[in-house]
């Protein structure tokens, strides 16, 4: 229920009056789930920068931001799906198919406008997402199974169509390859664009009725249905959006890496889910935010870069990543349990 109301729970007047200003502020900060990850991020950056000041150089920060964009985008779509108590495992395959098919357009049509390529990627992703959403919503089958199947099927289609071939950067126009490298006031343009998209997603989930309904569905699907929420339609939309965003991320991936084969994006679904979970989105739905997931993606990419800058072998990346993921889940669980019992105590006191 907490999540259905609003991330910042409305305070009752008696409650507000009985608390001093500073205590309320501390509590409010504590209650925002993202604050934990911001603290972790800040500590991590501070320690790394203290050891190796080069970590805070403009080029390095730009690198981290660009590196984050693809996973942050995927995490945005995944968050919407996870909040509704579903999961989308197919996004890595969608990204791969979209990356190849869209960048492959430059070969036969060298003059094709870049926005058209982005639209093509978006369309491919949307089509995949619509298929997922239709099967989950209309077929009423578990999304884990459906998207595990489409993970295989979409990757298989990718391989059947493009196996043994490769899109090389020489066949891509310079303007396309420059997308991840252009900056405004020192900030990479892609990072700005992705931040805007994430901001829109956050605004939608927070403010729009259909966005709030995703939280309600995730908290209790049966109650949501009884409350008159069109559960099927909302879940369908979440999957369609997740697919479309993965398609978009595919084009961005292609621009970033320049060389694309059929293995592009393999395993990205788990990275995106990691970012989502580290960002404080409950894996069983009903709570969490898009901003948190984006911060999760930023944290994961910061860690990878920090290890590199500190001269720690990249072979340590994954283990540290996994460890952090588990710590994040455990911490989130502890905080939730504490908060729930604290809120319950307060309620009984005021009753």
């Amino acid at each position, binding site marked *: 229920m907490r999540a259905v109301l609003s991330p910042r729970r409305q305070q009752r007047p008696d409650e507000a009056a009985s608390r001093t200003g500073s205590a309320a502020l501390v509590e409010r900060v504590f209650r925002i789930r993202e604050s934990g990850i911001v603290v972790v991020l800040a500590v991590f950056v501070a320690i790394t920068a203290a050891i190796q000041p080069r970590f805070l150089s403009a080029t390095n920060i730009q690198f981290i931001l660009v590196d984050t964009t693809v996973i942050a985008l995927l995490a945005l779509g995944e968050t919407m799906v996870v909040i509704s108590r579903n999961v989308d495992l197919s996004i890595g395959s969608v990204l791969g198919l979209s990356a190849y098919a869209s960048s492959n357009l430059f070969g036969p049509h060298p003059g094709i406008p870049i926005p058209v390529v982005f639209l093509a990627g978006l369309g491919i992703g949307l089509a995949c997402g619509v298929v997922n959403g239709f099967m989950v919503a209309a077929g009423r089958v578990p999304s884990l199974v459906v998207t595990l*199947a489409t993970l*295989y*099927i979409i990757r298989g289609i990718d391989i*059947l169509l493009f196996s043994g071939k490769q899109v090389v950067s020489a066949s891509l126009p310079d303007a396309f390859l420059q997308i991840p490298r252009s900056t405004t006031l020192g900030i990479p343009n892609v990072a700005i664009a992705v931040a805007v998209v994430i901001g829109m997603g956050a605004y939608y989930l927070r403010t729009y009725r259909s966005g709030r309904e995703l939280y309600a569905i995730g908290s209790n699907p049966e109650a949501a249905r009884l409350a008159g929420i069109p559960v099927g339609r909302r879940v369908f939309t979440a999957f369609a959006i997740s697919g479309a965003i993965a398609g978009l991320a595919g084009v961005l991936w292609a621009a970033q890496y320049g060389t694309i084969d059929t293995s592009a994006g393999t395993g990205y679904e788990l990275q995106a889910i990691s970012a989502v979970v580290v960002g404080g989105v409950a894996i069983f739905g009903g709570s969490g935010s898009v901003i948190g997931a984006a911060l999760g993606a930023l944290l994961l990419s910061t860690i990878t870069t920090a290890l590199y800058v500190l001269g720690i072998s990249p072979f*340590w990346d994954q283990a*540290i*990543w*996994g460890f952090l993921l588990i710590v994040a889940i*455990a911490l989130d*669980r502890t905080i939730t349990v504490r908060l729930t019992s604290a809120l319950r105590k307060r309620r009984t006191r005021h009753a």
Partner: protein
Amino acid sequence: MRSLTDRPLPDLLRPALRWETGLAVAVILILVIGSAATPAFLTGNNLFNLGLSNGEIAIMTLPMTLIIISGEIDLSVASILGMSSALLGYLWSKGWPMPAIFVFVAVVGILAGAVNGVLVTRLRLPSLAVTIGTLALYRGIATIILGPNTVSNFPTAYTNLGINSVPFTGNDMTWSTLIFIVLAIIFGVVLHATPLGRSIYAMGASAEAAQFAGIRVKRIKTGLYMLSGLICALAGVLWTFRLDTAVQNNGLGLELSVVAIVLLAGVSIFGGKGSIIGVVLGVLAFAGIQNALLLTNFNQEATGIVTGALLLASVFLPNAGLFLSSASRRIRRLSQS
């Protein structure tokens, strides 16, 4: 007393609608179509290769089945395989005697499973999230152990276990197939004929109800994760010997194949339903299709399409059965009124 013919259609159809029955028909179809498409399909040599290339996956489906029936999931299986393979290679390159390595690898596998189990049961964390975490962690440990190195040149006495056939089977059965059969029988008996097996179903149907019925849910679940860790470590050893190679990415991504087979076998992702017979049939269907497609020059990397399609069928066809029975009920009601 109602006679057989009076019984409503769904009751009559129920045994035929059992997922395992359908799966058995599918396996027979695959065998028939496969052997019609190419005479090479039903030869001993081919069956041997089939067992060889699917042995480790098959073995890992068994503990996964129990875990999913108990209402949880373990996505870290392939990483435990990779970790034990890396450990085996590392310790061998350091000159450890092989029996000592086996014991060590087995203990590490059990510990890896215990970590999963404790996080899931004691800290009450969702197993999906926990085992995605340990998937990264254990693969990461494998990467730390071996780095970019490859260890091979294991003693032939052991690598023969990976590629030779079991004596007295006429070159048709691999050791991994034999291990799978023995384990499948043990798992089948435990799951279907012991109180422990009933408990696993009960906690999958409702963990809370099982708890109140006096079943030690947490202890059993932790035990299942430890068992899974041990068996995946064994699969890692087999994998290493079969390829005579220990690298950090051994078995990468296999967890999804294992889960796919178990779900294909009719085990419910929500727990409480499924059978070992189904899983054995699921393994046969999976391996049979891969192999038939391989022999018919289908792009081998794209066989995932068929796995995926079967997986979809596994969730949609039972629903179609439900749809059928509700439709027939509606027709009966209409005809009675």
